[in-house]
């Protein structure tokens, strides 16, 4: 395959990790919660999926069942993390930044403790081919476009549709902009906050699972997962809080992030080793620029949700 096409597909596949992460984070942020626990949640999602696969990887169950059970495992653990986060921040009105950071510490740690005990020959070698359907077995980067990749695109589009085209989405955005007003018109603020956070966490968890089982498909993949959780939070800003934009955004991030390993193959661009870190810095710099531009232009629809980061207590004025 053409090296350029290979590179582009690789970036697209890589981007699915952030696509999940930022779609999940957008749902949470639209409810007014800046969830800095996303890296930990993604890690726990990965661990949950692999934990299930470790039990059933060699059981001889039909392939599609193994795929679904793995996804359910990832959803369960990451949604549990989301539940911890929403209990602390919604019900107990704890500081969101601190809770999120604690959750990341906890999630990343627990994932490492779990993953070290799992057997890669069981959870990875067999199942990875199932998840890579329909392109399993190919040698180029097309092999990574598996079940979970397509699911990521669907989830991003459906989330956008729900957020911007349905009544539930309207209510959710109202909660994130101004919970007191939403409460006054009879929207159950607590319910929306809980649901958005837990569903968002589940989606983000799938990103971690995809990264470990499909995109990297290696035993050490879990060690590098945390960094991409933070990149997912960056992508939320880049996508201006719109899930469908993350499809483009994640590809751009994928291109920026993986170009450092491809660019050395191109003879007419002279790249020294020292340039690589600077290339990897680009996604973050681009994010900062987008953040600045959107705040300078100050268009209402491109701003973070108004009550982002603030706890809501009905009796407080």
């Amino acid at each position: 395959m053409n090296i350029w096409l290979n590179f582009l597909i690789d970036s697209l596949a890589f981007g699915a990790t952030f696509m999940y992460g930022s779609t999940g984070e957008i749902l949470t942020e639209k409810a007014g919660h800046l969830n800095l626990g996303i890296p930990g949640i993604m890690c726990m999602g990965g661990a949950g999926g692999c934990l299930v696969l470790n039990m059933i990887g060699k059981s001889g169950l039909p392939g599609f069942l193994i795929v679904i059970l793995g996804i359910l495992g990832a959803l369960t653990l990451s949604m549990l993390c989301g539940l911890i986060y929403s209990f602390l921040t919604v019900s107990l009105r704890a500081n969101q930044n601190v809770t999120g950071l604690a959750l990341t510490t906890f999630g990343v740690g627990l994932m490492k403790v779990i993953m070290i005990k799992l057997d890669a020959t069981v959870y990875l070698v067999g199942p990875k081919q199932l998840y890579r359907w329909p392109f399993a077995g190919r040698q180029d980067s097309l092999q990574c476009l598996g079940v979970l990749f397509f699911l990521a695109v669907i989830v991003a589009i459906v989330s956008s549709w729900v957020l911007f085209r349905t009544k539930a989405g309207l209510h959710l955005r109202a909660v994130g902009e101004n919970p007191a007003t939403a409460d006054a018109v009879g929207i159950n603020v607590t319910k929306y906050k809980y649901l958005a956070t837990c569903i968002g966490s589940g989606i983000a968890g799938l990103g971690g699972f995809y990264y470990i089982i499909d995109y990297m498909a290696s035993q050490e993949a879990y060690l590098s997962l945390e960094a991409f959780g933070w990149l997912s939070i960056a992508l939320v800003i880049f996508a201006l809080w719109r899930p469908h934009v993350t499809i483009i955004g994640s590809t751009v991030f994928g291109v920026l992030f993986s170009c450092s390993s491809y660019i050395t193959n191109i003879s007419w661009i002279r790249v020294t080793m020292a340039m690589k870190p600077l290339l990897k810095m680009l996604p973050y710099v681009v994010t900062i620029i987008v953040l600045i531009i959107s705040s300078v232009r100050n268009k209402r629809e491109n701003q973070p949700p108004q009550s982002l980061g603030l706890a809501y207590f009905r009796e407080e004025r």
Partner: protein
Amino acid sequence: MARTSETREPLIHLSKRSSIHPLKAWMIRLAAVALGLALCGLVAFLLIERLRANPGRIGEFYYTFIKGSFSTSRKIWKYLKNLSILLCIALALTPAFRMRFWNIGGEGQTLVGVLGCIAVAFYLGGKIPEWLLLILMLLAALVCGAAWGLIPALFKARWNTNETLFTLMMNYVATYLVAFFLEVWVTNGSGTLPKQKFGKLPTVGGQAYLLIILIVLALTVCLYIYLNYTKHGYEISVVGESVRTAQYVGINDKKVVIRTMLLSGALCGLAGYLIGAGLDQSITTESAGGQGFTAIMVSWLGKFNPAAMVLTAGLIQLLNQGAAQISQDFDVSGALPNVIVGIILFFIIGCEFFINYEVHFRGAKQKAGKEAVK
């Protein structure tokens, strides 16, 4: 909730406490830590095979916590050193937090501080007298840290750019900046910078870490005075309470934001200097080691009060070091400390709710009402 009948009360009713006795508040916090520790024991029981085989050793598990920090004098010094660095970063972040400026870029500000001071040592080490080198290193660290804090502050003041997200991104820019300089400085391909021969903080009283501890102690006192007894400190509090009030009484809130973030960044740079010149004499992308994030929790748990932060930093460091000892003694993954610290933080974070709010149950209230009638 009260849809079925007009008079039905909700099961749980919350109200904000106007005040709470400090003793009671501390009892709630202690109870939370105790509960957290109990849950940690349970988790450890599930994760550590050797404990499951012999449940009687659970006492040993808790003993190991204390052992990790206090069993030998070497460990005590190490404990105090780690506490000081963590406290230094937390102190640096506090002025910004008091202003409700969510500076979560302590990690990056510290890292560029280390970068600045090691850069000076790398290029000028051996060429100028050691005392001059140390001063230049300090200046470089302060300037770099302050610059890293200033950039988000300028945009916050001018265009109200979200500072939480901005400072978070700056952390990663700092990380890759360090990676870049490591590629430039280290030409043999190993990727690790050897220890610099020049630019090491002198030892005081024969103890390697004593100087660092004393510096941070002095900083704690200074910052306590700065925040509580100076005009600047007062302005920070007013801007934090309400920007509109600040504008009304004639405080230039933009100036305060920029000035405070310069201070916050520079103090992070100081922490970087203590790491670079006082401990490592070298730099990696992990030089700040996640402490910039832990420091946020230290500062918040200490209610942005420098004196209380000494305690919270002490507690978190105790947990870290104790859990590290456990993973060593019980032969489990080195990531266990993160799990244990995470669990206990959940409990401490959660318990603040019971300090700030009062919970009334429907039944309890009726009972209290009846007693009042009697």
